């Protein structure tokens, strides 16, 4: 039993009488990667916060290398050799890479308070090299890609020589290549004897990476053991507690031949080049590509958030004015942005204010501009019910207290109130749990069957292949190819999206 580095024993935690965790027990072995999965709200974060000294358990004990472990604060956890790599990165973007890594322990020149920059850079360079990260330690973090930032965060954890590393959804903002690199580093850390807890929603990643798995549901451990014993179906069953035979709903072909969106030669220097595409009523059109391939940028131009130089966009045959989201909304466009917190929601406002925001003008009197809040509430309530939004009160509950999936439903709801004819969805299933994902797909299918055209941007090729009538593949600001549903093939789509890079990556992998 020597090789158990960390153990939870009968941990129970309640928040204001609501039970978040119930008698959770499991163990982490030395030199292994443990996957922790569960829907949002299953208690993963609470469990991690207890380990990190942010919260205290109501009942139960924790053991670190066999001896009781009772952290009073996050510092205790850090001293005990436990480090977090969070989903939202805690980096200072205005500081350099080296400064970020050494933020807690700057090397000083003898006993003066002056920082020894030479030693700082030297030790960073070594560390970065061990992570296959080819950047200068003096580079500012704001100039790094999300993947590089993630690695800097890991370097920071490694610098303090932690034995136990916690990764909370580290791959959500990474490209496939960066993910691959991250996994190889995690395996290397494992071989060096570090123990890792890995939290993720992406089950295929979990299967690829972890040795053991623990599945949480409603604050209880539903099952756990070597990953070999847990095929995907079993994992999902345990997580959601209901049989999901297929993770995607059946698509009925409802596409009509009436054109909703047409773009002609849309170009903007450094962003997108000569984009021509069409979306028909009731059609779900997927847009696939790597990060920075121009999909999101194009969606923003389409909706009128960002400008474009050449070309034109028309909705139902009418030309759409540039850079005017209000006009776009009037003509039936709706835009679910990729980052709900920053661009989608008023986190500090009640749900009703969020759902009503877009269609407020429709509910306000002509001259006095008084808002008919009764009618608005009634309609919002209908939409919330139809989306199966889980909340206590539309009027009093703030959006930030909802889970990720329910927050996304609020964003969708605010556009549904407007009955859009073209819905642009940019990564609508990112960071939400399996059950909520399925519900989002159902909503999409339902909207399409009623004639809404949907432009569906995603980095998860499986969901695109399951949901779309066509997939448009992007690379470096250009549309490379369109695939009809009959021609869908994961390999072909990937190859087109990666262009030459596919060969490069595979070569690199072989070389490692």
């Amino acid at each position: 039993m020597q090789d158990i580095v960390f153990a939870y024993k009968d941990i129970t935690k309640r928040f204001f009488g609501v039970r978040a965790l119930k008698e959770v027990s499991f163990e982490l072995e030395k030199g292994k990667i443990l996957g922790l999965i569960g829907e949002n709200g299953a208690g993963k974060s609470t469990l991690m916060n207890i380990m990190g000294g942010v919260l205290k358990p109501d009942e139960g004990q924790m053991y670190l290398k066999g001896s009781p472990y009772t952290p009073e604060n996050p510092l205790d956890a850090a001293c005990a050799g436990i480090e977090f790599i969070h989903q939202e990165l805690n980096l200072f973007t205005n500081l350099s890479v080296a400064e970020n890594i050494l933020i807690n322990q700057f090397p000083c020149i003898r006993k003066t308070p002056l920082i020894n920059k030479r030693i700082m850079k030297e030790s960073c360079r070594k560390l970065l090299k061990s992570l296959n990260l080819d950047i200068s330690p003096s580079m500012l973090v704001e100039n790094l890609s999300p993947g590089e930032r993630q690695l800097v965060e890991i370097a920071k954890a490694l610098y303090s020589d932690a034995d136990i590393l916690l990764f909370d959804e580290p791959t959500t903002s990474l490209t496939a290549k960066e993910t691959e690199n991250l996994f190889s580093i995690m395996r290397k850390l494992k071989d060096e004897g570090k123990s890792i807890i890995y939290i993720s929603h992406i089950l295929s990643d979990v299967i690829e990476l972890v040795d053991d798995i623990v599945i949480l549901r409603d604050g209880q451990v539903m099952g756990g053991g070597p990953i070999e014993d847990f095929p995907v179906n079993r994992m999902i069953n345990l997580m959601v507690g209901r049989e999901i035979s297929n993770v995607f709903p059946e698509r009925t072909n409802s596409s009509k031949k009436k054109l909703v969106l047409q773009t002609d030669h849309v170009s903007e220097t450094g962003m997108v080049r000569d984009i021509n595409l069409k979306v028909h009523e009731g059609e779900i059109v997927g847009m696939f590509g790597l990060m920075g391939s121009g999909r999101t940028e194009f969606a923003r131009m389409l909706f009128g958030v960002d400008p474009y130089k050449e070309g034109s966009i028309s909705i139902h045959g009418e030309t759409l004015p540039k850079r005017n989201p209000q006009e776009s909304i009037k003509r039936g466009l709706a835009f679910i942005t990729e980052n709900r917190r920053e661009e989608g929601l008023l986190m500090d406002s009640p749900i009703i204010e969020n759902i009503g925001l877009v269609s407020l003008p429709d509910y306000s009197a002509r001259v006095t501009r008084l808002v008919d809040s009764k009618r608005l509430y009634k309609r919002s309530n209908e939409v919330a019910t139809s989306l199966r939004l889980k909340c206590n009160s539309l009027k009093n509950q703030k959006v930030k207290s909802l889970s990720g999936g329910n927050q996304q439903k609020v964003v969708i709801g605010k556009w549904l109130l407007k009955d859009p004819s073209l819905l642009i969805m940019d990564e609508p299933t990112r960071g939400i749990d399996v059950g909520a994902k399925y519900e989002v797909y159902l909503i999409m299918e339902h909207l399409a069957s009623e004639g809404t055209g949907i432009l569906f941007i995603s980095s998860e090729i499986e969901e695109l292949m399951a949901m779309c009538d066509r997939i448009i593949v992007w690379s470096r600001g250009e549309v490379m190819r369109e695939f009809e549903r009959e021609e869908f093939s994961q390999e072909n789509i990937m190859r087109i999206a990666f262009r030459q890079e596919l060969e490069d990556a595979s070569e690199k992998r072989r070389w490692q």
Partner: protein
Amino acid sequence: MKQQTLVKIKSRINNWGKGKADVQDAQVEISRGRSLAKKILMSEYFVLYLTILYLLVLTPIIPRLWHPMNIQNVLSNMWPLLVVAIGQTFVLILAGIDLSQTSVMAMSSVVGAVVMTSSVDPVLFTKSPLWGIFLTDQGGLMGSSPLALPAGILAMLLVGLIIGFLNGFSVAIFRMPPFIVTLVSMMLFSAMAIFLTKSENIRHLPEAYLQISKTQFSVVSMSMVIAIVLAIVAHITLNRTLFGKRLYAVGINTTASEISGVPARRTIITAYMVSGLCASIAAILYSSRLEMGRPTLGSTLFIDIVGANIIGGVSLSGGKGKVTWTIFGVFFFIILANSLNMLNLSFYVIDMVKGSVILVAALLDVARSRIQKAQN
């Protein structure tokens, strides 16, 4: 054998439960007291409770507080401050700030007087750049006309709207920080008001104008009616209209609001215009009371305006604020100043106390949002 152990365990559980119950009772007592304190602290009416408590404590110490003359004095100080503070609330909800309100008051006061005055002293005003065109021996522009009053008031309101528009335009279209924009316009227009009049007060305003502050039916004065009507209109605007809802949305998250089709720029410009308009309405009340157009009007008022808002609970970080809160804040602030005056404290001491109170209010705001976060 098995059962015996089971019974043992059971009785153990029961006893243990009893011990715990006692502890729990005590804890419930404590937490009840705590939760009441928390409830009061978290209540929207916290400042009002505080004011009432303050009055109760002060009554035996300063009985003169309740003298009709003093009540009238407190109220007449309160209404104009309330009007200008409500304007500031609109901008604060946007996470902005309007430092130029005091200069709007000065400019409004001067411009209104220049339009309305019936005679000016040539000795004082010949050096003014306005002399000969806007100001002559015969008085101001409309000095002798029966339309002097409406023209003067219109001019005053226009001054507020124009300066507010300039502020809002710079903030919304050029995306300049509101602090710098309004700081500069404060400097510019305060100085301009003094420059235009060579720092002289303009007297001889029409009798009808002076009546605004003189009209009084027992406690109800004209200023009171104006201020209360304005407060009601502002309250409805913030809570029930499209503009109000959008104002909060922009204050909480401008980007998300824009993507949701909120005309953020127009909303911002309108908010600054409301702020300017309220300042000029306050200038009408103040100038009427002083019976003159005064180029330094309101120059010491800024801390009172923002202080009252903060005490009321309007957040400087935007998205949070209500007219009722501002009313409570103004009420408390005025009573504080009045009571300190009556204690015969010096001007400096009064300012020190005022400053400390605003500081405590800001701290309280932080504490409240922390408690709220913990509750979520």
